[in-house]
């Protein structure tokens, strides 16, 4: 009997081209390289300067998401880019993909989307793969039992040229969340609770495996949300063992293996063996998790909605509370909210939009609140519109946009104005992240939608009484019946 192995080690072992030694890191093979316009231009320039080609364009897939406008082209047919430089950056990727034979889900493609929404949707992401992208939220793909992590632009160049990365094996942490989530509590709340428990840098040097009953009960979108935010605890990657939920979700998607049943059997064997040892174990009770919101300027500064802002433990805490305009000891639910943002690679998928729509249906966004809903991909947009979710949002007074990263990173012209307070379903509440001097509260789609209705940070469960839930599920069944 061989040594019991973790999911992480099994995936790692399958991708070792040259083993690591004391002197040199291992050479790790990359199955899927996802590319977007922001972190790739200098990498393409670098390989061009060295006269190198893209080794495996068939394992490389590109999209446009970060610098792209979320408003459609105007009457003149021109897309409303924030700057000429943003337009040039997008065009640079278009040229690089054409030159190197890389498939690009560009403008006009019905597959375009935020890179971490698009990859799984197309079945590009599969269990047991290594997936990299010049983007720290690449851990999202770990929801499928892939080893997926963000890399810098130099490494983007390495992968383009060699399909490999130099890597040392990380330490392994298991986060076990037992119990069942309560109604109105989502994968996002779980992610914020985990990060609050581990700490912002608590995962540095680790790959996290999420396990336990509450994790198994999540749908794939909830699992993606959870893995997506692993980097917000500093972890290199987050992973969840493939199971029937994974296999059912991927079946029939465009890029999955032809012999799907054989692949699925192989994927199920990736699960961590009983008795495998982790360098660190953390446990949480899923039933104790409540809708979460952040009070500071780091993603680990999370607490249940309505809880008082904690007393600062450091000068950095005090600075964060001051930046947010809050006071220690007070609940943040009393502050007027200016902006609500629903979208991003964390929460821009169909169930996220449904959760927000379930709160908004038949209600109005509070006057004075700007609410922006940005689907994570063209596929999400199509599906949401087929269900009429776009109508729910626009009738409530929200803006319904075309897919992109939008206000999460605020580099495309969608931003929160200085001093304004936003409740966002994205992943970072750093100072200025959503715009210079913008103040960000991170929360789930349901909480964000509830806050839009109330005009202050609000626990969504007050709007999720039985009649509304029934109405929502009836509407969904009606669409399914057509």
């Amino acid at each position, binding site marked *: 009997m061989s040594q019991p192995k973790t999911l992480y080690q099994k995936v790692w072992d399958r991708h070792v081209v*040259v083993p690591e030694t004391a002197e040199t890191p291992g050479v790790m093979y990359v199955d899927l390289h996802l590319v977007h316009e922001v972190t790739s*231009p200098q990498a393409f320039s670098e390989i061009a300067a060295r006269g190198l080609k893209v080794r495996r364009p068939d394992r490389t897939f590109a999209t446009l998401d970060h610098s792209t406008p979320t408003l459609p082209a105007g009457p003149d047919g021109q897309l409303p880019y924030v700057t000429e430089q943003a337009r040039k*950056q997008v065009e640079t990727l278009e040229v690089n993909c054409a030159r190197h034979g890389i498939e690009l889900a560009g403008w006009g493609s019905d597959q375009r989307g935020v890179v971490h929404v698009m990859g799984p949707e197309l079945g590009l992401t599969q269990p047991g793969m290594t997936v990299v992208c010049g983007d720290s939220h690449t851990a999202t793909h770990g929801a499928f039992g892939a080893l997926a992590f963000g890399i810098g632009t130099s490494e983007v160049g390495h992968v383009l040229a060699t399909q490999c990365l130099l890597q040392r094996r990380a330490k392994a942490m298991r986060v076990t969340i037992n119990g069942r989530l309560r109604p109105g509590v989502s994968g996002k709340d779980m992610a914020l609770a985990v990060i609050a428990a581990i700490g912002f840098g608590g995962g540095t040097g680790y790959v996290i495996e999420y396990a336990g009953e509450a994790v198994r009960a999540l749908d794939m979108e909830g699992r993606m949300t959870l893995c997506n935010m692993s980097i917000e605890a*500093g972890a290199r990657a987050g992973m969840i063992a493939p199971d029937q939920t994974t296999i059912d979700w991927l079946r029939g998607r465009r890029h999955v293996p032809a012999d799907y049943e054989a692949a699925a059997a192989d994927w199920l064997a990736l699960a961590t063996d009983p008795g495998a040892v982790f360098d660190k174990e953390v446990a949480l009770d899923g039933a104790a998790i409540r809708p979460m919101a952040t009070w500071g*300027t780091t993603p680990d500064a999370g607490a249940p909605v309505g809880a008082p802002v904690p007393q600062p433990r450091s000068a950095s805490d005090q600075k964060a509370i001051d930046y947010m305009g809050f006071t220690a000891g007070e609940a943040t639910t009393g502050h007027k909210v200016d902006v609500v943002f629903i979208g991003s690679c964390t929460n821009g998928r169909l169930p996220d939009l449904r959760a927000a729509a379930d709160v908004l249906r038949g209600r109005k966004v509070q006057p004075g609140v700007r609410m922006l809903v940005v689907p994570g991909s063209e596929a999400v947009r199509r599906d949401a519109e087929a269900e009429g979710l776009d109508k729910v949002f626009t009738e409530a007074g929200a803006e319904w946009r075309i897919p992109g990263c939008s206000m999460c990173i605020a580099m495309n012209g969608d931003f929160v104005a200085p001093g304004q307070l936003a409740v966002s379903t994205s992943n970072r509440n750093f100072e200025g992240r959503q715009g210079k001097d913008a103040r960000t509260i991170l929360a789930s789609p349901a909480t964000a939608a509830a806050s839009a209705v109330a005009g202050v940070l609000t626990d969504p469960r007050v709007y999720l009484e039985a009649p509304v839930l029934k109405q929502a599920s009836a509407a969904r069944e009606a669409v399914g019946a057509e």
Partner: protein
Amino acid sequence: MSEPFKTLTSKTLTLSQANIDTDQIIPARFLTTTSREGLGAQAFYDWRYEADGSPKPESVLNRIDPTEHRILLAGPNFACGSSREHAPWALLDYGFRAVISTEIADIFTSNALKNGFLPIVVDQAVWDDLAAHPEQPVTIDLEAGEIRRGNVPAVPFKVESFARQCLLDGVDALGWLQAKLPYVASYERLRQDTYQPETA
């Protein structure tokens, strides 16, 4: 490719705040560039400039001479957040060549080392000692793997061995990786045939 990094002697600049994320080091709105040059002008931009672009006089980053402060002494969990390599590009172009902290984010460490920028992790007592003597030059000796300040006993530090050698030689890792391409080719072949690849 970058200049070899052997020793560096400089005064330090202390930014003691915890969790200085890469959005602080260079805000996302500057990432639409397709170049890696000239990003020092945007380093810590929102710390250094008002909304109208005028410099904030209270910002220490506007008061120092960057050529005299090549070593950043930063609070814990430095350069967390986004994977943008624009962060080390901006720090280097501003004038820094190394950062010392009690904790530095993984992706930044990897990015920095590929650009001739040295991230060093020390324990709190060493950090406190350096912070207490900001005007006294510190020598980072990569070859010896130690930090020296005046007559204080040298403090050892570790850098991943391969990255260290690349820094000392002023070479990058891509050339080394390219030399492994025959292994990559055989890995790809084995995998297709057996679906259960062995290491090369």
